[in-house]
């Protein structure tokens, strides 16, 4: 059953390596001479206002904004780093590995908090928690879960209601999903119990949060686990259908980050763009005018930018993790 879903999704999702993008938009005022190519896994609607405000200050530039999944993004960029000027991704571990492996251009004069950058080459600019998003209708009459533990109990109590109604990332496909899963697993054993419950309820696996939220709104699934809260809240049209819950015991929080390709053709423009994003996002007041959540300056992140992010990217570690995950979710 699950494989059919994957098949359906793979038919719908465009063949990324053939340079077919999930989304592509050219921001230009027609007179520009340079075109910055930005490779991103962030939905265009989140970035369009930021890009437009940037272009307002840099009329000679235009920006080609290319969207793909985080894992694909990592592969594409590693194969052809000269094709892109700026890389934006929510998968911290993959971004970190790009910087560690020398794909990022150090920008020594960017002003940014020390904990939110690595080697002056990787800049984190938003703080976004992974959330449990529920369909309000499905939880009518039931106490809304506040934590993972609550969720496990709620699901166990009504397996017939939630059978086939759970959605979560396919960690084999989604870089961000894998990142969230490994961080969850690192933090608590609850993750494995939850995954086992998901497996017993025949959870649907998604490559991307967009699809997951779509299905949640339509009522096809009742619970989406580890979805980016910002994405769910971004769907303002559907706030009456869905509810975003940040797990109270330990929210897994990710920082979206950007780097400039070492082989960029326009280092000055790319640098200016990074400065523009970090300026906006590090300032709560400025960021309020833009759809992306700001960089949370008040609390240091639980997951920081550091070499430990590479732990779960190890082939052996990943193989072990995926095996465990598969044995838990596929029953």
């Amino acid at each position: 059953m699950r494989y059919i879903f994957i098949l359906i999704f793979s038919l719908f999702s465009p063949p990324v390596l053939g340079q077919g993008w999930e989304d592509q938009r050219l921001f230009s005022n027609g007179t520009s001479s340079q075109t910055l190519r930005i490779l991103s896994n962030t939905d265009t609607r989140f970035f369009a206002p930021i890009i437009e405000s940037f272009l307002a200050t840099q009329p000679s530039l235009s920006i080609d904004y290319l969207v793909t999944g985080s894992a694909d993004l990592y592969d594409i960029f590693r194969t052809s780093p000269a094709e892109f000027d700026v890389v934006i991704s929510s998968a911290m571990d993959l971004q970190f590995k790009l910087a560690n492996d020398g794909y990022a251009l150090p920008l020594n004069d960017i002003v940014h908090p020390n904990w939110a950058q690595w080697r002056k080459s990787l800049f984190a600019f938003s703080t976004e928690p992974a959330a449990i998003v529920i369909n309000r209708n499905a939880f009518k009459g039931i106490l809304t879960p506040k934590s993972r533990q609550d969720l496990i109990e709620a699901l166990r109590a009504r397996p017939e209601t939630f059978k086939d109604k759970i959605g979560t990332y396919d960690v084999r496909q989604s870089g961000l999903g894998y990142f969230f899963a490994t961080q969850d697993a690192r933090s608590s054993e609850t993750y494995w119990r939850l995954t086992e419950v998901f497996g017993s309820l025949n959870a649907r696996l998604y490559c991307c949060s967009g699809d997951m939220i779509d299905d949640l709104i339509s009522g096809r699934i009742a619970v989406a686990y580890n979805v980016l809260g910002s994405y769910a809240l971004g769907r303002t049209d559907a706030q009456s259908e869905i509810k975003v819950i940040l797990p109270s015991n330990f929210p897994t929080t990710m920082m979206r980050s950007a780097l400039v390709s070492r082989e960029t053709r326009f280092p000055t423009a790319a640098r200016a763009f990074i400065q523009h994003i970090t300026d906006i996002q590090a300032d709560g007041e400025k960021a309020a005018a833009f759809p992306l959540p700001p960089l949370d300056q008040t609390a240091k992140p639980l997951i920081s930018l550091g070499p430990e992010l590479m732990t779960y990217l190890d082939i052996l570690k990943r193989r072990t993790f995926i095996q465990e995950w598969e044995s838990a979710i596929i029953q």
Partner: protein
Amino acid sequence: MIEVGQISGSLRKRLIITLIGGGAVLAVLIYLIVRTYATQIAQQGQDSILGASVTSILDAANLRKGDIEIDFPYASFSMLKTASDDRIFYAIYQDDKFLSGYERLAKMNPKTGTGSTFGNTIFKGANVRLASASRTLVGEGLRTELSITVAQTRDSLNGTLNRIGQNVALFGAGFFLLVIILAFWATSAAIAPLARLTSSITRRGPHDLSPVISPVPREMAPLVFSLNKLMGRLDQSLTRSEDFIAEAAHRVRTPLATVRSYAEAMLQRVEKEENRRAMRSMIRAVDESSRAAGQLLDHAMITFRVDNLDRRTVNLSELVTDLVIRLTPIAEMRDVQIKLEAGEAIQVSADVILIQNAIRNLIDNALKYAPQESVVDIVIVANPRPEISIKDEGTGFPNEEMHILANRFERGSNSESITGSGLGLTIAQDVAEAHGGRLSLSNQVKGGACVTFSF
């Protein structure tokens, strides 16, 4: 006149250069030693963390159904976090077969069970420090060797080293500065007694030959001892010769007086003009000798007094007026008029006897050389310094001899017809110098000599 002798090098310079040179060598040595030591320690710090990381990965390895499984902890990498965000690389090999990590990372071949081995290499364009270790895993019918290499860039280490290097360099520079200050201080402290001795000898009067009695450091004692001995001998021989001259002059004067009185008596009795002339020449010669003897005595007396000046406040005008009155009879004998221009009272601190003697000699000279029916002008001025000028209308000083006339027994080439010992100017000059003044000789434009005695 004063000869310094040959100067070869400088004690002060030699001392300072030796001390500063030594300080510089020490500062450089300190810098090198501390830096090397700090580098070792910092390197050990990085090595131990790399080693711990390698060990933690090795420890997590186990064989499951013939497959290697390494569920290494998050800490394996998080412990490698540094302030400079160093990059990390790693590689996992099973019996030389690459399993995971960065394939091209140089693989060192550590021996099993000997702990980690360390080395430096360049990976992905960065200088990295790497640690390797290996472990033998034994499973069902399988024996395999697992080796792990973890590498880290050296930015943080280099940052630390640079900081240490800077601090140590600053420390070395400070040390060197201190050495320079100390060198100057030590040198002047060492040289000071020498300078003190020099100035105490320089400050002495021209005839002070007393031994040095102020305490000197042990190293200078032989020098001072020799100096004192030399001065003692000099003093003795000087005194002896002065005494001898005084004694001789005294002994000559008495028989001369006797000879003169007999010659005078004889002159009364001799009638023959030829003999009378001879007698007169004899009396004149005796006078001359007696006068010379007198001046020799004067000179000896002055030499003695000059060393022990008996300074008192003297009214110069009064003193000169007195002398002029006393010398007026002699002037009248020669038909010379003495004209004195003295203003108000001029007070000087001086040895009265010496001044009297000197001025009398000068007026005496002027009277001797002044032609008949002429005037000797004596002018006393108070400003800018007290001065007495004595001018006559004679032939003046011979120009080419002016600078030697004040030497002992030196007489002008135009003075053959005039009695004199050649000591008058010497006495006046000695007195002037003993009072810190000087005696200057010149000729007036209208003719005649001018001697100025200034304080």
